[in-house]
């Protein structure tokens, strides 16, 4: 194991900001910030609570746009694997998997662990574990260079 590209300051700061967003939505509105669930309810046009969910998702796009007006150097953007089959397969797995497992990095990883939910801790260990094994395999097969 070699440690590379480590950005503890930026990532911790970004994490604290994400935590603030989670705390605001919970303490002021009572909802968990599970993005896969919020987004699913928007695209499946669930009429109950559509407006707030739609605006939260819109905010996820407005935030980065606002940030781009400041002279700020972000941590870059690079997609190591742009094979269309992999991109589409990955998207389908993320979409289907987060609905079947009822949560993603934000719902299980941040809100669930923040509430000390055993179910979410198990979910997070499974998706991080599956991710580590997948990267080990794709790197061995030469699909990605990391």
């Amino acid at each position, binding site marked *: 194991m070699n440690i590379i590209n480590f950005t503890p300051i930026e990532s911790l700061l970004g994490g604290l*900001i994400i935590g603030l967003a989670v705390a605001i939505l919970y303490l002021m509105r009572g909802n968990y910030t599970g993005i896969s669930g919020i987004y699913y309810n928007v695209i499946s046009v669930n009429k109950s609570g559509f407006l707030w969910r739609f605006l*939260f998702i819109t905010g996820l796009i407005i935030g980065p746009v606002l940030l781009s007006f400041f002279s700020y150097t972000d941590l870059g953007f690079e997609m190591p694997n742009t094979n269309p089959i992999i991109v589409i397969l990955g998207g389908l797995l993320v*979409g289907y998997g987060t609905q079947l497992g009822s949560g993603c990095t934000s719902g299980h990883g941040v809100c669930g662990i*923040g509430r000390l939910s055993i179910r979410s801790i198990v979910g997070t260990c499974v998706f991080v574990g599956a*991710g580590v094994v*997948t990267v080990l395999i794709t790197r061995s097969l030469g699909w990605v260079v990391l």
Partner: protein
Amino acid sequence: MGGAVMMKNIFIPLTSGIIFGIGLVIAGMTNPAKVMGFLNVFGNWDPSLMFVMGGAIVVSMPAFLFIGKKMSAPLFNKEEGFSQQLKKNIDSPLVLGSAMFGIGWALVGFCPGPAIAALTQVDGNVFMFFIAMSIGMLLKKIF
């Protein structure tokens, strides 16, 4: 719409989403190379994502476990109150779904939030992932 309803349905969710989106970019979560670097534990490892989750939990945990517990209801949502956790059991859909999600996450480097925030990159591959993810979610409704 009254003031409290506007706070609840417009101002709070929009503000939370904007702050969340800014946090994702600052943390480096919208860069798939960094996410895949975090999962590359057995190669050139980038531990940054642990700091993202750690930072987010440090702030959100007191909100869930201490501040929220002292409040009878959320500030602007007395009617619905705090969301109650729906499921507590560890079942096979949780494990199978999380495993599928982890594989997809590692193949491309995007989870749902960053995939949405990264639409601002105006990149064809991000858009393709975003559409496939949306279709995957809707497929779960059918199958």
